[in-house]
């Protein structure tokens, strides 16, 4: 009897423990997952409190104490369990601090956000609607509070360096802002309130009276399509969004990759690009381009362009390059072609897969001259032309070969062969004994020599989207590190730099994996076309590495600061 009683007691205790355990498990899960990433575009990272930053992707879940960062052209939309939605604009950093959501008691719920830099749009969920005092939003050194229950939809932007400049625009609800320069008591619907150093914040103005740059920045965030503001079960919503994003990404990749010719791997100073008949825009690292795009470098500008087949073009200062045609199909390299026209200035050209697989597909002009690559293997050469006069009758040029052999058909006659480590100069001569003007010749030679001194990516084929993203991430990391080095006592900058480096590392790995996957697809496709032979299985006949590996380029280490301080990945 005693044994039965004891057993009952033991079972009761065990049962209670089990119930508690299950409750604890479920409740901790409910507390743990604060929200999920709804949408990502461009470069964006997510960094949990005790982990490294990694690329953010739609469907990622996150907990409290997670930091999101976006690069140039980056944007991320996150949704919280209570329906709160944050859209983080470009070049921004947001830390989700504490987050508690109790579906049945809003007063027990709280959400704190810290916008360290950049801009975000905040749309309140259940917490902001029913318990506005439970929402705490820091923006730089300013504090934003929602003034009334019922929620709010507003944009806040801060740029902390060197002293905080910020603004807020409200689309719905009422907020107050305590800035380092004084309070803004009430910003209502359709109002804009700026703050800047050295003056008391003015009373809010209608948004329609805001400066053009503010209207555009806010307009971009207003135009973003947001998910519905209803509360969600984070895990299932994240799974759904992740699945949709994967399908969309695959569709986008399948549709866009064939059109893209390459991406900007590095830029220094002023470099602009013009797509087809469109307007001219600054060429940022990671920007992709198609055939028909022209690049212009300023007097101190430099750019490194990498093409899908691995071909690399380094543009020197004061240069104009047009990519007239470009087509690369790794499954059909014989149909691939590349036609580039250096209108003026200097470029270093490193061949890629098209040159090795389809020599005839390469067509290079430089000013009024035509460059012909004589070797079928890899080549690396620099050509500089000064042909600014409209008739191109006075062209002065130089070609220097680092690898392979080329011929140049100049307006003054052909140079039948320039071998490795040789240079040739051409220019107008009245008679064969006339020297080429020394000053001009010296300038083009100096430009050619400068172009040789750059560290470059390898010339293996790439998956454009991921490689472009990796280049952009690396550029962001370089910038963040430079900023952190300039302010060694600033822990926040150091943390941001470390996060940027982690992200760059992760995106580079992803880019390598994508390139390898692409190469594997090529191998599979080739295997599918090979007839069975008596010599054995088709796979045995395929060389170990059918996609040509990186060319062993002997290049000097980049001189720090040479070329005006590259902001690119490897400058």
């Amino acid at each position: 009897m005693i044994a039965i009683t004891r057993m009952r007691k033991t079972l009761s205790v065990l049962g209670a423990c089990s119930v508690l355990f299950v409750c604890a498990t479920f409740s901790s899960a409910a507390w743990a997952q604060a929200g999920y990433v709804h949408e990502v575009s461009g470069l964006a990272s997510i960094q949990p409190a005790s982990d490294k930053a990694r690329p953010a992707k739609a469907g990622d879940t996150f907990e409290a104490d997670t930091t999101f960062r976006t690069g140039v052209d980056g944007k991320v939309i996150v949704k919280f369990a209570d329906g709160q939605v944050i859209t983080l604009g470009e070049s921004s950093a947001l830390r989700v601090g504490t987050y508690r959501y109790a579906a049945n008691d809003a007063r027990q719920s709280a959400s704190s956000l810290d916008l360290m830099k950049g801009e975000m749009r905040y749309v309140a969920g259940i917490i902001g609607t029913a318990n506005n005092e439970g929402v705490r939003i820091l923006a730089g050194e300013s504090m934003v509070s929602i003034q009334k229950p019922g929620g709010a939809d507003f944009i806040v932007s801060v740029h902390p360096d060197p002293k905080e400049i910020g603004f807020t625009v409200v689309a719905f609800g009422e907020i107050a802002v305590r800035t380092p320069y004084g309070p803004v008591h009430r910003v209502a619907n359709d109002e804009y309130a700026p703050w800047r150093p050295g003056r008391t914040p003015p009373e809010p103005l209608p948004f329609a009276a805001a400066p053009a740059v503010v209207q555009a920045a806010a307009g971009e965030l207003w135009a973003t399509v947001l998910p519905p503001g209803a509360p969600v079960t984070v895990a299932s919503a994240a799974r759904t969004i992740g699945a949709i994003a994967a399908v969309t990404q695959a569709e986008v990749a399948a549709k866009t990759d064939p059109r893209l010719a390459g991406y900007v791997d590095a830029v220094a100073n002023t470099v602009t690009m013009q797509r087809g008949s469109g307007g001219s825009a600054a060429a940022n690292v990671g920007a992709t381009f198609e055939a028909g795009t022209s690049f212009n470098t300023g007097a101190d500008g430099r750019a490194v362009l990498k093409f899908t087949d691995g071909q690399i073009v380094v543009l020197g200062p004061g240069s104009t390059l047009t990519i007239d045609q470009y087509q690369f199909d790794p499954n059909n390299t014989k149909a691939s072609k590349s036609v580039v026209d250096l209108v003026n200035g200097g470029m270093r050209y490193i061949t890629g897969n098209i040159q090795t697989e389809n020599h005839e597909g390469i067509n290079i002009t430089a000013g009024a001259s035509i460059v012909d690559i004589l070797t079928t293997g890899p080549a690396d050469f620099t050509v500089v032309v000064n042909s600014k006069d409209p008739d191109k009758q006075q062209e002065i040029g130089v070609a220097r070969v680092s690898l392979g052999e080329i011929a140049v058909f100049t307006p003054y006659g052909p140079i039948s062969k320039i071998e490795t480590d040789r240079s040739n100069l051409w220019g107008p001569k009245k008679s064969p004994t006339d020297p080429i003007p020394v000053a001009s010749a010296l300038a083009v030679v100096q430009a050619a020599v400068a172009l040789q001194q750059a560290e470059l990516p390898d010339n293996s084929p790439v998956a454009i989207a991921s490689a472009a993203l990796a280049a952009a991430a690396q550029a962001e990391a370089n910038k963040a590190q430079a900023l952190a080095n300039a302010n060694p006592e600033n822990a926040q900058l150091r943390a941001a730099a470390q996060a940027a480096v982690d992200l760059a590392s992760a995106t580079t790995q992803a880019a390598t994996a994508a390139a390898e996957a692409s190469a594997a697809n090529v191998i599979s496709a080739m295997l599918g076309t090979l007839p069975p032979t008596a010599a054995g299985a088709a796979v045995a006949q395929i060389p170990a590495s059918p996609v040509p590996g990186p060319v062993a380029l002997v290049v000097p280490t980049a001189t720090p600061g040479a070329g005006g301080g590259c902001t690119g990945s490897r400058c």
Partner: protein
Amino acid sequence: MADSPTPNRSPRTAPGSGAARAGHRTPTRWRQAAYAALFVLLALTAVQCARLGLAGLFVQTAQREIDRSTAVALYPGMAAFPVRMPGTRAIRDATHYFSNSLEYTADNPWALEGMGTLNLASMRISRTPRQALDVTRTARLRFRQALQQRPTSPFLWANLALSKLYLDEPDEELLTALRYADALGPWEPSVQQTVLFVGLATWQSLDAELRAALVRSLERGALRNRQKMFEIAKSYRRFDLVCAIRKYEDIAGPACAKAAATAVSGEPIRQGFRR
């Protein structure tokens, strides 16, 4: 027939030539030269008229394209400021017509003004700050160029002030533009609205005279333009200005009463009654 001089024959070679005949011939030649000059002048005038006419026609066509567009609220919560927003196609077509007009007369102020207005419209649909800044700068340049041809146009001065507001340049040029716009177009409803809109945005930079001019503009606006003027003042929470004008009483009465009541409660700014 014999009396009429042959154009190719000089008086020296003409048989039986005399002073009287030579004297008779010279005026005829002068007359012919004058006719020719007149003809050339008329032809040039006709060409110029045709050019101006065509330029004007293109401006009118472009204006019709813009007028066809409807007023919309561009952003959520922006219903208070519906903007007559030409669609992308309307902007493109109107730009094409304005460009054609400028081809005929490079400094046509109406075309320049139209292009500037389209630039401001483009600013409102820009999605990058850089682009917005570029088009607003272009608008400012075009208004400045147009003002060189029509310095007495209040619309141009008002638009110049607006473009400078969007460029965040509350400087002397903006204040001058406001002064001229108000002085040259005191009874133009759109000028009144723009002057009030820009003036209230830059209120802290205005001198006493310009502030007084703004209040007078608000008073004048009450006659033909009351609702819109009130909406603008309300959007800046400037009930102190509008409630002091009796002509606004019927539309601003409730808002003024509410604002006054909250002002007594000791929270003038929180509730919108700005001192």
